[in-house]
């Protein structure tokens, strides 16, 4: 990693952290635990599309670690690590093996983020009762995934040209193809 990428990844991590923090003040379903907008995922989507796998994983781990230290606590960090890992792997897989746009990738990410968290929760409490909550979390993941995917699509489209350096032709083409099929 050179200085430029370190700076860039740190900036992105900071943006993701701030989004994650402010998200706590947007109550979209106050009575339902675990349902949130997932704005931090827009930053991760940006990293996936404009940078590459390695940076996306670094960014995800940074976000989990720092938000754990700052506000989520150890338990919270365990949940977001499980959700983050599963969701990132599934996002990369769907992007690689299927011809979907940012919105599809985002929906898959959001849904599997929720699935990962429920699985960890089931291990902690050792109860299958949480399975009844899974359908609700999948539906909420679809809704928030479409929203954050749309946001990420615009972000990638308009912010990407600011970094012409080092973004090789390949990446530019790839981004354009995804955004304007």
């Amino acid at each position: 990693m050179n200085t430029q990428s370190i700076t860039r990844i740190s900036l992105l991590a900071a943006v993701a952290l701030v989004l994650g923090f402010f998200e706590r003040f947007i109550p979209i379903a106050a009575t339902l635990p675990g349902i949130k907008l997932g704005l931090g995922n827009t930053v991760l989507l940006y990293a996936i599309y404009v940078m590459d796998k390695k940076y996306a994983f670094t960014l995800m781990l940074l976000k989990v670690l720092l938000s754990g230290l700052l506000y989520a606590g150890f338990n919270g960090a365990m949940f977001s690590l499980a959700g983050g890992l599963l969701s990132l792997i599934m996002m990369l897989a769907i992007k690689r093996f299927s011809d979907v746009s940012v919105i599809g990738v985002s929906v898959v990410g959001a849904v599997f983020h929720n699935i990962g968290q429920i699985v960890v929760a089931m291990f902690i409490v050792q109860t299958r009762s949480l399975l009844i909550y899974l359908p609700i979390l999948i539906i909420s993941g679809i809704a928030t995934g479409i929203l954050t995917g749309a946001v990420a699509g615009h972000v990638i489209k308009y912010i990407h040209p600011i970094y012409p350096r080092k973004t090789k032709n390949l990446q530019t083409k790839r981004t354009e193809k995804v955004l304007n099929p």
Partner: protein
Amino acid sequence: MKKRDLYIIVLLMAVALTGLLLSRPGLLANGEANFAAEDEKKGQVVIYAGALEYKRIDLKEPQTLVIDQKDKYNEISISNRGVVMKSSNCESQDCIHQGEVTVDNIESRALESWIICLPNAISIELVKGEVQ
């Protein structure tokens, strides 16, 4: 948005709806308010600590129960109509926000008959019916 995106969304939606219908047979019951008849208002509260059953209490015996495991503290209040998490020292307080489970409101709750405190690994289930 592309066609493939829609396929994925529809597929996930189908999975979710199937799961929803399988786990909640009450959803298909014509939306009638099916309040339990007076003699059906029987039930018991089962409290689990982790995977282990900690205690089983009949609704006929209203009480407040304190579970104190080292640094994890939960106060559960059982009335003759249902059960509610009164207080908990966990950070999220999700269990408090999940509110009361009563014999009548099980079908309309997101977590059905359960109250779950993840950080303290306490789960409470309200089981309808007579005690064996």
